[in-house]
């Protein structure tokens, strides 16, 4: 056992020991602070946080006996730790105190793997270096949230793509840290926290076992200057994103209001179109580019056009519907809203172009869409095919319903049935074309 424990060393114990026994009994407790996290099986295993609670309601889960308890109370074992999403590996537990900086710990591990990668397989050689470079920026406070997301993509691309297990050994701790310490990493990216320290004063480390000279805090002055500069840049980017978000939200909400409040169904359809475009913009902000494209194609390209077709088919009879006082009255300034919106959008586009020229989302886009495609045609293949069957059924059903089971007397004008129906219900002679028929019955 190593890390921030009072008594690091090699211990021999039976399977079935818990992490709590290991850290607090054998290791003598956490040195300098409380327990933050522990890597149970050597540095290439995913990390476990001390505040995780086990959620295993299923009877068959190997973790069910410890449902609702802390992860520290689970006995060390192959099955239990696999179910926890980590491994026992080489059983070299590394303990992290809450006074230490998890971001620096992550950076330290990745520096090790970058150095150790032999370079034979490209994903591992390049991926470990990419991860380290991105983490360098994040530690310095120069990173962005997008780079944080890219870290998981890089790590994900190493998994399973290398000859030996070293690649997994690099990717698994990276994914573990990204999952368990997302909050801390995001806080660092936003400049809310400063780099802390990794080595703690106390009985561990080269600083001396009996409270010797304290280690100076890590960031020297130069780094702090760099961080504040980058902090400003990040802040400006966030405000730009907020502006885009505000525009998309305006589209969504005003479009929604127009949809439900407009008297003319065509205006409703246009409001729906604005909402759809706004939602697609939000998908882009959430880096769901594939879904944004699908949204525009399916909704704007198919659904709204279908609505417009039906409105046109129904004709002027239903275009304006006069009898709803509660939603009829024009909202104050409603007419002006679309124009204002359009002008602002143009201004934002003009402003966005020069200031934001770097294609920052390009690598993320392809990676994300590829991952979605893989998942869609892997795990989601059956539902995907079922959805195509659903669409086929819907199309056939729509045609069947729209043709109508009840025969229209004007369509069946030669049969006896139509003559009977015309005699019974329809007042006009059967030769009248359907358009005049519609106009006559219009109120």
């Amino acid at each position: 056992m190593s890390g921030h424990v009072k008594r690091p060393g090699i211990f021999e114990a039976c399977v079935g020991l818990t992490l709590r026994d290991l850290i607090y009994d054998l290791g003598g407790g956490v040195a300098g602070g409380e327990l933050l996290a522990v890597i149970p099986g050597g540095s290439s295993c995913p990390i476990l946080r001390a505040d995780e609670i086990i959620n295993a309601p299923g009877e068959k889960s190997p973790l069910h006996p410890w449902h609702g308890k802390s992860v520290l109370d689970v006995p060390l074992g192959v099955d239990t730790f696999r179910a926890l999403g980590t491994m026992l590996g080489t059983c070299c537990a590394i303990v992290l105190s809450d006074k230490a900086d998890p971001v620096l710990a992550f950076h330290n591990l990745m520096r090790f793997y970058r150095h150790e990668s032999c370079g034979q397989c490209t994903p591992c050689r390049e991926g470990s270096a990419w991860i380290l470079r991105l983490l360098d920026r994040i530690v310095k406070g120069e990173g962005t949230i997008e780079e944080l997301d890219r870290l998981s993509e890089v790590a994900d691309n190493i998994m399973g793509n290398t000859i030996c297990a070293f690649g997994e050994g690099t990717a698994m701790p990276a994914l573990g840290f990204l999952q368990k310490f997302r909050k801390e990493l995001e806080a660092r990216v936003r400049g809310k926290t400063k780099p802390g320290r990794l080595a703690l004063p106390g009985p561990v480390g080269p600083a001396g076992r009996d409270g010797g000279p304290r280690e100076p805090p890590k960031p020297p002055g130069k780094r702090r200057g760099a961080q504040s500069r980058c902090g400003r840049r990040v802040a400006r980017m966030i405000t730009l994103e907020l502006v885009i978000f505000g525009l998309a939200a305006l589209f969504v909400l005003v479009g929604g209001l127009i949809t439900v409040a407009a008297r003319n169904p065509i205006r409703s359809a246009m409001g729906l179109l604005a909402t759809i475009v706004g939602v697609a913009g939000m998908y882009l902000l959430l880096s769901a580019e594939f879904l944004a494209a699908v949204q525009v194609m399916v909704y704007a390209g198919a659904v709204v056009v279908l609505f417009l077709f039906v409105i046109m088919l129904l004709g002027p009879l239903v275009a304006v519907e006069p009898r709803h006082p509660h939603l009829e009255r024009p909202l104050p300034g409603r007419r002006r809203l679309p124009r204002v919106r359009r002008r602002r959008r143009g201004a934002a586009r003009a402003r966005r172009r020069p200031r934001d020229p770097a294609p920052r989302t390009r690598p993320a886009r392809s990676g994300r869409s590829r991952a979605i495609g893989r998942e869609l045609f892997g795990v989601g293949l059956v539902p995907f095919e079922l959805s195509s069957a659903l669409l086929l059924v819907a199309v056939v059903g729509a045609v069947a319903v729209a043709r109508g089971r009840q025969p229209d007397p004007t369509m069946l004008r030669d049969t006896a049935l139509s003559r009977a129906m015309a005699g019974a219900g329809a007042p006009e002679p059967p030769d009248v074309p359907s358009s005049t028929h519609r106009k006559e019955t219009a109120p």
Partner: protein
Amino acid sequence: MTGIPLEYFLVVAAALFVTGSVGFLLRRNLLVLLMSIELMLNAVNLTLVAYNRFAPVSHNGQIFAFFVIAVAAAEAAVGLAIVLSFFRVKRSIRSDEADLLRN
């Protein structure tokens, strides 16, 4: 890529959902009812995708939203067909005239 908090997206989605449900409850025009349903589905999709950003590797939320879009397209097709055939019977698309099954 976003530095915008999750709550903003959720608030917009909730507002959109409320707009859609109010429209669905208050309007009588069948076409507007269908559009209100689309608004609500969009709000749900937005929520799904917003939550999905906080899962580092999984894309389940986006994939589910994809299926919701497929179902919404099917719903729109069938719903509009029903509107057409209703119009053929009643010469109107007001939902309170849909009383054929009332005795």
